[in-house]
Structure formats: structure tokens, C-alpha cells
């Protein structure tokens, strides 16, 4: 007998008599043939159409496609959060290994990256780098051993690094109740000015990972987390640098046991929350979070009010203290606002995702920003801003980074720094990017449709101004928010079914087209539009905003936009030459037949230009698209302009990506 053989036997017994249905193979083969046929048929039809198009398509229509800046897409049922202006710079590459469970600390003009772990490897990292105006430099060797899941805060003078677990020492599977005792929680201080470390006293509690680590202004607070042996810890400690002493925080009266805890410092009290595991606390009636408050002056805990499941669900909570004293609690499925004064929760506008385990968000002073994260198996590369003053969510501009999870977000006081994490292929990424929300001179504002207007479907910048498209029923409104969100133009769609999907295409000359087409009624799947098989759905049309006329695409033109279904979303490829995409329903992690495209993928979302160097990673183009098709994303559009060289090889000349949820 080997350890856990009983579990193996249990699982084996669970499926011992489970035989595949007799028709399973037939179903798979039938389905597989459909995939193959569609793939080949689409490629052949596109190739033929491209030849015809050279002769028949009027110049000036498709020639402008190359100059497109934006290809937009709006969901048929949900109102999209409008885009907010801002500029990304990057990507930049830090001169250290990509990692997760590291810390990224903004230290008065310097970004300090230290520690962490590498996906798929056992060891931790003890290296770090500092970025400042002079560039990157390696940090002096730390007196702390390599570790991940630690915490770090900036005191105004030094970075305090506390706790964490060395992966190489952790993680042996022990029988419950037989875990060895934990080592003490270590502390060290790093001075980025002198590049010197100092070892400080150990805490009188055992070390831990994923704890709540806060700086109160004069003290370091550490609470909760998981021990080296994965036990949930509910105690903590407070370190006072001026005295060089620790104070133990007794165990909190909290039973929540699901994932990492979260907390804030109110100025006088530590507030913490953990997600409740309904399996362990079945009497909580679905309440998702349990919270408690600790007053260091009295060394006493108090229980916080329960969060009603009617207000928020989900786990992976992140608490952020807002400037007005309230605490924003974001979970994987929603958000809620906590008022410490009244010990009461209030609803928060529903975040623009249905499921997302994101990084710790940042507070800008006016907005809560979050970017990336994982939903299901996909790594998102979009972000959102929450404005508590108006209780609205806005979409951040598209970032020049592939999607990722377990990265860090750092607010510098002026900009958001995204770095590290793991990408769609579970590879550590040492790239990052910086968002400057105010560079455009715009405030982070939510664009609302005017009274009586249709829900906002898409917003984008045009010639420096913000425009928005409202879509609903069988009609489209065009707004100019800078004019007070007046409805400036409106057009009825020729077919109500056409609003099943649509894409806003901004052309190089500053005009735009609303491309629309699809099968099914609004709000109803599927989105299958296959112009190679016109019977599938109505022919795509363009809305010409100058005449407010819908223009039905000719066969020759429409054949050059191939729309297909991609994981429940639409994939549109704008082709200069035919391309045999391996599978329009490509599986994010199984792309293995895509040509190794070289070149630069340039794209622009909401009028903000960005680019990605493919560097021979053609498959990643599709991965970047697929990874973003999260549960929150019901529509996606990918536009690619390819050029074929003399050798018959396709090179990506220009690409356009737009994914909305």
C-alpha cells in the first residue's frame, strides 16, 4: 500500500462501471468532420473570393481596411462599460525571471520587485530588481532566503519584507494533525536608496504565505494566511519599527476558510475578511464572506456583520479602503461596499465580469483599478475602473500585454504598473506595462447614454473626441458625449436579427463603420455568421454614419470578412490574402497548426494604439484572443491583414483585435 491508496480506490470505484455511450465515437467523428469541413471550405471559398475581389471590389472601400484603427464589438444583451481614456506604455521587460507570488512595491519613485515562484517548478526565488529613472538594477542579496507568498510594504523610508514560504521546503502532503511545527515569521528591511538590507526581529508567530500585510503609517500589520503546511492561520502580529518590537494579534473570531484573506487598515482598526466555504459552514446560508475587526489599542476582535448573499457572491475577496472611509470588497463574482461606521454593507454596481479571480486592485484616490486575472482557464488582458462616487464601472484602454493571472498591480500615484504573472500557456512572463490614465487629459469618466437613449454598446475616441454607439432593439444611436450625450444620429437596422452582433470599425480617415450581421435574435446565441455559407445568416451590413444607411456587403467583399464562431463568440478575420486558420473554434491550449507569424500585431482599442511583437509566435495571436474569451466575454472580433511574400509565406501586416464582454 502506498499513501492515499484509499483515495485512488475511491476515485476508481466512482468510475468503475462508467462506460462511454455506444454512440460517443460516432458523435465525435461527426463533429470532427464538421470542424474539418468548415475549416477547409472556408479557406477555399476565401481564396476564391479574394481573387474575384481584386477585380470587383470598388477601390476605396476595402483599401481603407488597412488603415483601420479599431474593430469593436458589442454584446447583444449586456450593456458594455464604456471605455475610459488613457495611454499605455510598454511592454517593458524586467531583467529578472518572470514569476508569481512575488511582491511589487512602489517606493517613492522606485519599483521594487522581489521574491516569488516559478510556475511548474518547485523552487522559490530570492532575487529582485529595482527600477527608477536611471533604469533597472539588481538588488543586493537579501538576508532572507528565497520565498514566495510573502508581503512587502513601503514605510516611506524602507521596504519591509515579511513572511512567505520557501516552496522547496513547503508543500509535502501530510496527514491532517501530523504537520510539523512552523518556523517563525521573518522580517527584513530594504533601503532602495543605499541598496542595503537589514535583518529585523522574527515575529512571535509562525511564517505564512498569502497573509494580509498592511502599513498603518507607523506599524506593520500581518494577519492570516496559510502556514508552510497549508493550515489556515487566523492569528497575526504587529511590528512597530520605532520600538523594534512585535505584538501578537490573537486568533480572529472568524471561520471563513476559502482561499487567501483580505483586509484594510481604517486608521484605528484592522478589518479582515475571508470567503466562507459553504461545505464547512453550511449554516451560513450562502453568505460569501465573513469579517472581523481588530483594535490594537484594546487587543480585541469584534465580528463584523455578515454579508448577504443577495449582495455579493464568489470568493477571492479583495478589500480596498476608499478615501471616504468605505471599503470596497471585490470578489470573483461581484462587489459590495462596507461602511465601517455603520457596520453595514451596501450594493456595488455589478462588475463587468461574471467570474474573475483578479489580482489585488489599486486605489487611485478616485477610482479602483483592476486588470487581468483568470476566469476558468483563461487569462484576461482587459481591465476596469470603478468610480465609487457614481457607482459605475468603466473599461480601461486595451493594454499592450497578453492576458495573465497572478501578476501584480502597483499604483505609483500617477500610473498603474502591471508586471509578472503567468500567461495563457502557463508560462511566467517578465513583461509589464504602465497605464497613465490621465495622459489624455481626460478624467476617468463613465459615458452614459442620454435619457431615452439606447444602452451604450461601444465607445471610442475619434479625432481626440469620445464617441459612443448605443445599440438596442433594431436600431442604433450615435452619441457625442462631449456634446452632453445628446443623440446626434439614429438609424434603424434593416433586420432586427442584425443586432445579434456588431462591430464598430474606425477607418483611417476618421470615419467609422458599424458592421453588423448574424443569426438569431438579440440576446440569443448563436453568433454563427459564416459568409462562406450565406444561408447561415443574413449578410453582413455596414452602417454609414454619414448617410445613416445600411449598406449590404457584396459577396466579394463579405467573403473577405470571415466570421466564424470561436468558443461562443464571433471571430472575424479581415484578410488581404486567404489564410487557412487551423480551426475557427480553436482551443486555447491546443493551437498547434498556426503558422509562425512574424511581424508586429498592431491594434487599437477605443482609439488607443498598441502593438505586440509576434516574434514568430503566430499561435499566440490566437491564444491572446482565445484567452480573453472569458465567461464575461460573449463576443470577440479579430481582424488580421496579411501579406504573402514571394515565397508564398504569410506575414502579418496589420492586425486588429477587439474583445468585449
Amino acid at each position: 500500500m502506498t499513501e492515499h491508496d484509499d483515495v485512488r480506490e475511491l476515485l476508481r470505484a466512482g468510475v468503475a462501471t462508467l462506460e462511454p455511450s455506444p454512440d460517443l465515437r460516432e458523435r465525435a467523428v461527426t463533429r470532427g468532420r464538421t470542424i474539418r469541413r468548415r475549416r477547409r471550405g472556408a479557406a477555399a471559398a476565401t481564396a476564391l473570393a479574394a481573387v474575384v475581389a481584386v477585380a470587383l471590389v470598388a477601390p476605396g472601400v476595402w483599401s481603407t481596411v488597412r488603415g483601420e484603427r479599431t474593430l469593436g464589438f458589442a454584446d447583444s444583451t449586456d450593456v458594455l462599460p464604456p471605455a475610459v481614456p488613457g495611454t499605455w506604455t510598454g511592454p517593458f521587460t524586467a531583467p529578472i525571471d518572470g514569476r508569481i507570488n512575488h511582491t511589487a512595491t512602489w517606493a517613492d519613485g522606485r519599483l521594487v520587485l522581489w521574491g516569488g515562484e516559478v510556475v511548474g517548478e518547485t523552487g522559490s526565488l530570492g532575487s529582485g530588481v529595482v527600477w527608477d529613472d536611471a533604469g533597472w538594477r539588481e538588488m543586493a542579496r537579501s538576508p532572507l532566503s528565497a520565498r514566495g507568498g510573502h508581503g512587502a510594504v513601503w514605510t516611506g523610508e524602507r521596504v519591509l519584507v515579511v513572511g512567505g514560504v520557501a516552496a522547496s521546503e513547503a508543500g509535502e502532503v501530510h496527514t491532517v494533525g501530523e504537520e510539523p511545527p512552523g518556523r517563525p515569521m521573518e522580517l527584513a528591511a530594504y533601503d532602495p536608496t543605499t541598496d542595503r538590507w537589514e535583518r529585523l526581529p522574527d515575529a512571535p508567530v509562525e511564517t505564512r504565505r498569502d497573509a494580509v500585510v498592511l502599513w498603518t503609517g507607523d506599524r506593520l500589520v500581518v494577519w492570516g494566511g496559510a502556514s508552510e503546511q497549508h493550515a489556515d492561520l487566523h492569528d497575526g502580529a504587529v511590528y512597530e519599527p520605532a520600538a523594534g518590537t512585535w505584538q501578537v494579534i490573537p486568533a480572529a473570531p472568524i471561520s471563513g476558510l476559502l482561499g487567501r484573506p483580505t483586509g484594510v487598515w481604517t486608521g484605528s482598526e484592522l478589518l479582515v475578511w475571508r470567503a466562507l466555504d459553504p461545505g464547512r459552514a453550511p449554516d451560513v446560508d450562502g453568505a460569501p464572506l465573513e469579517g472581523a475587526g481588530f483594535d490594537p489599542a484594546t487587543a480585541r476582535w469584534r465580528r463584523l456583520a455578515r454579508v448577504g448573499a443577495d449582495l455579493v457572491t464568489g470568493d477571492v475577496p479583495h478589500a480596498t479602503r476608499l478615501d471616504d472611509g468605505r471599503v470596497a470588497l471585490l470578489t470573483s463574482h461581484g462587489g459590495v461596499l462596507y461602511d465601517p461606521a455603520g457596520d453595514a454593507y451596501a450594493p456595488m454596481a455589478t462588475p463587468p465580469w461574471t467570474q474573475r479571480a483578479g489580482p489585488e486592485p489599486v486605489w487611485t484616490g478616485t477610482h479602483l483599478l483592476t486588470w487581468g486575472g483568470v476566469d476558468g482557464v483563461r487569462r484576461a488582458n482587459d481591465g476596469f475602473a470603478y468610480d465609487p462616487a457614481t457607482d459605475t464601472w468603466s473599461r480601461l484602454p486595451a493594454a499592450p500585454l497578453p492576458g495573465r493571472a497572478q501578476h501584480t498591480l502597483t499604483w505609483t500615484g500617477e500610473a498603474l504598473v502591471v508586471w509578472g504573472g503567468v500567461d495563457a500557456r502557463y508560462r511566467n512572463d517578465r513583461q509589464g506595462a504602465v497605464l497613465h490614465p490621465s495622459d489624455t487629459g481626460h478624467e476617468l469618466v463613465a459615458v452614459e447614454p442620454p435619457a431615452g437613449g439606447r444602452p451604450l454598446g461601444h465607445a471610442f475616441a475619434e479625432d481626440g473626441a469620445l464617441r459612443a454607439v448605443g445599440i438596442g432593439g433594431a436600431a442604433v444611436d450615435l452619441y457625442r458625449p462631449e456634446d452632453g450625450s445628446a443623440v446626434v444620429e439614429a438609424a434603424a437596422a434593416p433586420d432586427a436579427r442584425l443586432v445579434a452582433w456588431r462591430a464598430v470599425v474606425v477607418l483611417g480617415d476618421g470615419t467609422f463603420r458599424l458592421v453588423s450581421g448574424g443569426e438569431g435574435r438579440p440576446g440569443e446565441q448563436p453568433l454563427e455568421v459564416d459568409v462562406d455559407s450565406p444561408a447561415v445568416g443574413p449578410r453582413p451590413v455596414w452602417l454609414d454614419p454619414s448617410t445613416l444607411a445600411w449598406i449590404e456587403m457584396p459577396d466579394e467583399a463579405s467573403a473577405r470578412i470571415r466570421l466564424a464562431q470561436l468558443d461562443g463568440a464571433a471571430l472575424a478575420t479581415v484578410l488581404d490574402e486567404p489564410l487557412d486558420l487551423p480551426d475557427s473554434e480553436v482551443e486555447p491550449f491546443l493551437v498547434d497548426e498556426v503558422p509562425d507569424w512574424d511581424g508586429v500585431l498592431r491594434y487599437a482599442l477605443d482609439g488607443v494604439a498598441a502593438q505586440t511583437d509576434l516574434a514568430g509566435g503566430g499561435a499566440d495571436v490566437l491564444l491572446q484572443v482565445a484567452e480573453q474569451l472569458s465567461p464575461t466575454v460573449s463576443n470577440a472580433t479579430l481582424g488580421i491583414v496579411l501579406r504573402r511574400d514571394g515565397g508564398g509565406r504569410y506575414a502579418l501586416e496589420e492586425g486588429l483585435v477587439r474583445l468585449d464582454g
Partner: protein
Amino acid sequence: VDDDGFAEVFRLHSREAVGLAYLLCGDRQRAEDAVSEAFARMYARWGSGAIRDPRAYLRRAVLNEVRNGFRRRFYERREATRRHADDRGAQGHDDAVGDRDHVARLLAQIPERQRTALVLRFHADLTEAQAAEVLGCPVGTLKSLTSRGLARLRELQAAQLTNGGAR
């Protein structure tokens, strides 16, 4: 397409794939849908030489399909409609079904990532490094998920004994 070769791969791996999918999702119909889609994708690529390890390919494809439960492809709805209309009738509820339900109920009370870790480690017999890669986490996290999943499973089993061994 080398249908014979595909048939052989199906014969060798379909049962294991259905079992994996079932343990992950606890629903036979959903499990078969996931396996069907995984094999369909494999079939579409069959002969290109791109699939070097069919078993590993299937494992990941099945996991993706199950975890992407939010996806409701047109195909799946069509298939569901077809199945709903067929004459297969209700599944029998014998002891074997009872065993399956029992295990499925146990696993359903374990958080998804912990459950996946247990199934990958103790059913699919992946190494810790392999399971960590599939789950997209460090080996330490995989160990943590496994440890917590085991502890949770033991708790659930103990609770069942306390409650008279009720299934």
C-alpha cells in the same frame, strides 16, 4: 483520415477520458459532451501529425472542456436537443450508479481546484509537476491544493460515518 488509427485511440482512451471528465464535473451527460468535443478536435487534426501524445492531448482537452462549463456552443445545444429527442430513455439506477453518485457528491463538496488536483494526482496519476502545469500553478500550490483537498475529503468521509454511513 486514418479512421482505423483514430478508432484505436478512441478504444484505448475513451473510457479513461469519460472517467476523468465525470470525476471533474459529476455529471455523466456533461462528461460525455466534453469527451465528445475533445475527440472531435482530435479527429479534426488527426493525420496532421500534430498530436504526438493523444493521451496527454485528451486529458488537457477534457479538462478545458469541463472547466469551460460556461461555454455553450451552438453544437452543444444542437446535440442536447437531439439527445433530448432521442429514445434513449432514463438511465438505470443500479448499485453502480449509486457508487458513482456517492463519489460525485463527495467531490462536489470540494472546491473545484482542490478537486481537480485530487483527480489529476490520484486518478490520472500525474506527477506533481505535471498536475501543476495542467492547473497552471507552482508545484507548492499544487501540493497545497492536494493537501487541502485530501483533508476536505477525509472530513466528508468522517462526517458520513458519523451520520450512519449514509450515502
